[in-house]
């Protein structure tokens, strides 16, 4: 089973991790979604919260240098600069189990 977190802003992937205050926690097994929960994200303790929830993959928008430093050394696989509809991103991630470039939506516009 893999636990995935996607930072959200409405039905879109939140545009930057340091400003995201919600995320979708999805547990996936054999290509099927087992559970999904929307949760509040406190940016100050974000990494610890996600690690505590057993998150293995984090799909998010833009990363500041500080976010990069915060996540360095973490066991969470981060797929940053993702842009798009949350459901499409999730569907494509599950379907592809792919790297950042292959993940849905599209990469940042610059």
């Amino acid at each position, binding site marked *: 089973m893999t636990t995935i977190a996607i930072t959200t802003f409405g039905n879109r992937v939140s545009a930057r991790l340091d400003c995201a*205050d919600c995320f979708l926690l999805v547990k996936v097994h054999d290509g099927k979604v087992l559970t999904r929960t929307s949760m509040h994200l406190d940016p100050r303790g974000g990494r610890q919260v996600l690690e505590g929830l057993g998150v293995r993959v984090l799909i998010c928008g*833009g990363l500041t240098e500080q976010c990069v430093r915060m996540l360095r050394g973490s066991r969470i696989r981060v797929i940053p600069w993702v842009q798009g509809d949350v459901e499409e991103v999730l569907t494509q991630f599950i379907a592809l189990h792919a790297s950042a470039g292959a993940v849905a939506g599209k990469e940042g516009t610059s």
Partner: protein
Amino acid sequence: MSDTPGKTVPTIHANTILDSIADGVFTVDTAMRITSFNRAAERITGVPRGSAVGQFCFEVLRANICERTCALKCSFETGEETIGKQVNILRGDGKQIPISISTAVLHDDSGAIVGGVESFRDLSALEELRKEIAGRYTFHDIVSKNHAMRKLFDILPYIAESESSVLIQGPSGSGKELFARAIHNLSPRAQGPFVAVNCGALPDALLESELFGYVQGAFTDARRDKPGRFALAEGGSLFLDEVDSLPRATQVKLLRVLQEREYTPLGASAAVRTSVRVIAASKEDVSKLVESGSFRDDLYFRLNVVKLLLPPLSDRRDDIPLLVARFVEKLNLKMDRDIAGVSEEVLELFMRYPFPGNVRELENVLEHAFIMCRGGLISLAHLPGEMTMRVEAPHPLSSSPLDALERQALVDALIRHKGVKIHVAKALGIHRSSLWRMMKKHGLL
């Protein structure tokens, strides 16, 4: 601003005007999708117009307020303009750009809202100056990809969160104060003051009154109470640079502050409680000073709760290209210039130069080059003369040991006499024409 065919003449004029101004301007429809994007907006955000138009504005600008207190949404809801709100946007390269934004609602002929307009101004230059004046440096301002430095970055947030004393050791110009400020600005004390004292710059007689203050009548000229640096730093951090130069008597008093959390101003009868966090720095290895007896061991152990060792620039040469890029960017903003960077020869020289003054020297060298260079790339000709002389250039003609010795003597004399050839020739006991031939032979011309 848009390239739609069939535009009217007033529209074309409006677009030309918008493209000619220095501020970024874009418009959105009521769904927050971008409908136009001017040239300055492209420059500031780094997003081409073709990619921006049709996208949600919050996914293009990525401002820190987009998802909570969007200024355009506020304007839609209240009908009121926002003027000069300061925010930051996140560019695709991960760089945050401070901007000030203004927003307004767009109506059609019937008065219905059809969208909004936002203009924004790049405040990077202003912010850089403000930062320099206020010293509000953060981790973002410490540039490094070096392995040893990255290890420091990893532990710095934990150090900042703690209340422990910190001892930063590193050679002159390696960034000790920058680290101290970054620790303070990341700590829960960030809203409190950061007070820096260079212990080596104050005479021993003054140091104690500077640190702890005095009360009226403490000595002949003490006509009124004067708060010391500890009092000024209350609720914040006190940075004691060159702590190794503290006289023994003051070391005892500082030890008492760290142990008892209180001190007594000169002439006062009662002690004052303090909650200041002490961050000390030294270019010397303080443990060796303890061994030699010039620094108290108990104070060393109190200060050395957390020790950060900053490497000299010569040990992190892989950072030089990154630092050069950062300083060029900073100096362009500060001096309102448009220098593209440094030439390959300059970078090659930087990679071989010993940089005894470390990062500070690199910044000073680049500032010198900015004055000398009128535009384009900084070349060797724009660097201080002594710098090019100090680096031993591998030269095909200086192949024998004797040649190498001759070249070294020449370089030393050139440095010693600041490149004044008549003095160099005299010092070496040769004629000026011989000096010229020697310099040519060794590639020093």
